């Protein structure tokens, strides 16, 4: 009897409660873009993207107009990571955004590598571990000056000593427009990445040359696909990289692929594009 009485009181009291915000979850989907045509990179160099795997997550959606320091409390969050094949446009379910209803005006996310206040070294999360401690693994072929340059880039995106600890590295800027009044009936959120946005700024011209041995010149010179080993003006030997199926990299010689170095301008261009340029699109009207 007592239990029934208490249960009745509980039901009555619970039915009387009204709250401004309620907990909610929104299914999160990620997708890429099927780039069928070569991307035109810097100085008109066409680039064919063969692989663009992105480590994505965690993701936070915030109430304020500026994410980062002003998002100690997020409206919605997804705390996992996933590897996104950004060359495929078929959405894949990543998980659930969990949080509460209300307006969101900004977002921020990491690319598989997070920064926490509890230590200065970044955390390599699951998806980035799958990519060899990288946020992005990019492979493709650029044709510069008639020379085809297969390339690969492995780019970790993380906070450094010069940046801000404890805050996700990619954040909405104040000039970007983003607004949603999240309620409990959201169908899903789809984030779509376009890898061509990351490639467009890369200048591949430094990776092709037509040089001969000259006084004061490099020890290894590339003349298109031909590798010349030099001693000053004297040509010591040559190799046809193209015939071997390789590419001649200035200063390096015949290589299977160009590996974009972390100190190069191409790398910086790629990194900047990932952090500040190539934003995903947010689609709240996606219906799975």
């Amino acid at each position, binding site marked *: 009897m007592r239990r029934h009485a208490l249960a009745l009181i*509980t039901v009555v009291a619970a039915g009387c409660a009204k*709250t401004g915000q309620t907990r909610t979850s929104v299914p999160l989907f990620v997708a890429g873009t099927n780039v069928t045509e070569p991307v035109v990179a810097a100085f008109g160099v066409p680039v064919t993207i063969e692989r663009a795997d992105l480590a994505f997550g965690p993701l936070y959606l915030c*109430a304020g107009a500026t994410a980062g320091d002003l998002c100690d*409390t*997020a409206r919605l969050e997804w705390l996992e990571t996933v590897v996104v094949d950004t060359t495929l446009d078929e959405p894949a379910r990543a998980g659930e955004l969990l949080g509460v209803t209300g307006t969101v005006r900004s977002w921020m996310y990491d690319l598989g590598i997070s920064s926490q206040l509890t230590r200065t070294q970044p955390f390599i999360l699951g998806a980035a571990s799958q990519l060899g401690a990288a946020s992005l693994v990019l492979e493709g072929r650029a044709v510069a000056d008639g020379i085809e340059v297969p390339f690969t880039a492995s780019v970790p995106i993380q906070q450094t000593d010069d940046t801000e600890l404890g805050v996700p590295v990619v954040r909405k800027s104040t000039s970007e427009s983003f607004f949603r009044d999240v309620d409990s009936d959201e169908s899903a959120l789809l984030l779509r990445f376009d890898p061509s946005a990351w490639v467009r700024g890369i200048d591949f011209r430094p990776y092709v040359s037509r040089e001969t041995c000259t006084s004061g010149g490099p020890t290894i010179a590339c003349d298109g696909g031909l590798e010349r080993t030099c001693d000053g003006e004297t040509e010591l030997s040559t190799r046809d990289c193209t015939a071997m199926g390789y590419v001649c990299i200035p200063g390096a010689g015949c290589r299977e692929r160009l590996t974009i170095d972390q100190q190069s301008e191409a790398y910086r261009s790629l990194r900047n594009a990932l952090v500040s340029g190539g934003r995903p699109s947010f689609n709240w009207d996606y219906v799975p």
Partner: protein
Amino acid sequence: MDEKTTHQREHSPLSRQRGDGACCRRQPPKRAAGFELCAAVCVCMLCAPSAWAQEPPASAAGESSAPVAEPVAVSPPRAVLSTEAAYPPEALTARCETRVELLVTVLANGSVGEVSVAISGGQEFDDAAVAAVRQWRFEPAQRGERAIDSRIRVPFQFTLPRAESVPALAPSTEDAGSRADQAPADEAPLDVTVRGERQSRTEDRSVSDFRIERDVIVAAPRQEGADVLRAAPGLYIGRAEGPAVAHNYMLRGFDADHGQDIEFRVGGLPINMPSHIHGQGYSDLGFLIGDTIRELRVTEGVYDPRQGDFAVAGSIDLRLGVEDRDRGVRLRSGYGSWNTFRQFVMWAPREAPEETFGAVQYMRTDGFGENRAGQSGSGIFQHRFGDGALTFRAIGILHVARSDLAGVVRQDDVDSGRACFTCVYPYPTAQAQNALANRFLAGLFADYAGSDGANGQAGLWLGYDNFRIQENFTGFLQQSRVLERVGGRGDLIEQQNRTFSLGLTGRYRTSPFRPASWVHGTVEVGADGRLDVIHQAQNLLDASVRHQTWDRRVDASIRGVDLGVWGDLDWIFTQYLRLRAGLRADVLSYDVEDRLGNFAPLTRPQDSFIRGFRRSALGLAWGPRTSAEAKPLEWLSILAAYGEGYRSPQARLLEDGEKAPFSKVRSADFGLRFDWGDPLRLAVGGFYTHLSDDVAFDAAEGRLERIGATQRLGAVAHAITRPLRWLVGSLSFTFVDATLLEPPPPSAEEPQPPFAEGQNLPFVPPIVIRADLGARHTFIERLGRQPFGGRAGLGFSFLSPRPLPYGDLANPVALLDASAALSWGPVELAFELFNALNSRYAAIEYAFPSDWDPNDGIRPRTPARHAAAGAPLSWMLSLAVTL
């Protein structure tokens, strides 16, 4: 309205005086044998003292008429049915003649209440006299048209071969209107002390005025002194942070946190601490000693001009005193669950007034889970002295406590098994949580009770409080604002608060003025003043490196002055209508020295300014306090009330020159009160409260932050029954719909705070139920010359599911406490069970982001449920001796 009689030394009911009959044994005075009422019924509804100070006693016992010399006549009780005492057969062989004098309480319904032996003639004769007088019936004492309790002295002269009873008033078994003259010529004049109402002050301003007498207070078992507050209708108290931190209070739809919405007074001393860093109006009642609490007066709403700062939900006044039955030297030792030990010592001389006593207590415990060990000690000393119209009361309170704290755990960690409900996170920053509290309060009050009905009080008090706490709610989220690129060292917030307070109080109520025969009234004027000097600091500590300070958040000194004045008119029109109209105004000033004010971000050059921001503010808060009472029938009162009050701000949040820094409260009550005497007293009513500026707890800062305006609409019912002399019960039911009226202030992080019309306030339980049941009985009148008896009690509290932020709903809380005790003469053995149902509940719940896993590379940023576990089933066994 009430005058308490004093125990005048020369007429002390318990003084050991020799009667006639020298050949008979002399037994020490004892309580009346037979059934004992668990409560002082006569004082319950009619004899309430002043809410804000101990009322002065009535004029000395020994006068043959009521001490209240006013136009309303007072008549003593008159016996209408008496029984002669039977001479004890076993005493015949001794051929004794002796005299017994009894102190008899005549209740307002004419029956006999408490009986005690003033002059003993020997055990057998005492028993015979008591047995006889318990069958007597009286016309009760009267004040005007109103029956009141009274106490009379009844001598019995036992002579051979047949005993005669010499009544205080001539008995008349058939003619209630006649007065027989049977008093022997050589008998001393009767000593009639009237305990009744004085027409100078009424305490009940609304239907939500509750007086909880000692019998209800002690009916259910109490783990600590402050647990007496559970008997207050609609009040829930929780102990989430250990014995060194104040309770959490909820009353009438207000989540009062540590006391921000309830004005507390103990023995007339103000308890709330303004601008305390751990919570505005911080009120730690851990020093309370249950044995010294005589009465609890709960004034819900703000209708009395004497109510000052923090009286938003209402006021609670604890009157201290030790009843006759409990006086003497008492020692009690207890041992219980979790290696809990309690020691209590009290000294209350039997010849001294009720308000004179000294008591100390000590407690230590290992606690019911990790990091919950604690110790505390407290002492309360009070003395009433003086004679005649002017008496004095001195009071002193000392309290020390230190405890470890378990903090809170995330509900999702408990659900997933990563943490247990009573556990503490396994990091130094969580294990290092603890608190320390020291407090000293002292006061001297002078009470004046004029023979013309005028009365007044003046008082001086001072206090010192030292508080320090280390708590971590959020784990590893914080960054230093002072040290560049330092963060993640654990959010162990250290708060320090040190306050010195000094206060004065005074009031005067005139004698009744009677411009016509059908109307009379009084006027009261009064003033309260206090000065507080507060030093407070808040830092972040790294518990893994010897508590290194790695951030400084608060470093401030505050000087606050609060001066309140009031006037109150109290007018009675015939016997059917009473109107009260008062006005109160308070001037508050603050001088804040904020040594970290104008703190610049780390990116600003440090050589462009000197840190610090001093500011001051002064404002006036005033409002009416009105009430009306219609009494169409003797047993029915209709009450309505309206009042406006305020709550002072957290001074550090004030801007320079802020003129209106208060949270204003508007309160209204309407209801009915039914008084059918002991069988049932019932109050039912509805209330409405509007608060202009509410506050809520911010876990990241560990303190209260402003939210918007709020309102409460509710109903309350409270019943007290004493159906039998040995049984008392109390039941209360409170319903409230507490809602937010406007969104919280916007901020950069939350520029458009979500708000829904009619949004419920979080943490406030819509329904609060409380039931107390107590029984006391003497099984054997004399077992080896001592009475053998026992008592039992039940206490039940229920909180309906509370709305939490973000649509969550807390589980209901149902707590049952039970006790049983056996007593043999001065010795009592008691066994108590707390949370007998072993309910698993959260003493307090919050919703905020936290990160308690610093090594997983993930930082949660959405609000999560956190809880501090409530105590599970526990027991306590105690042994008490009263000498």
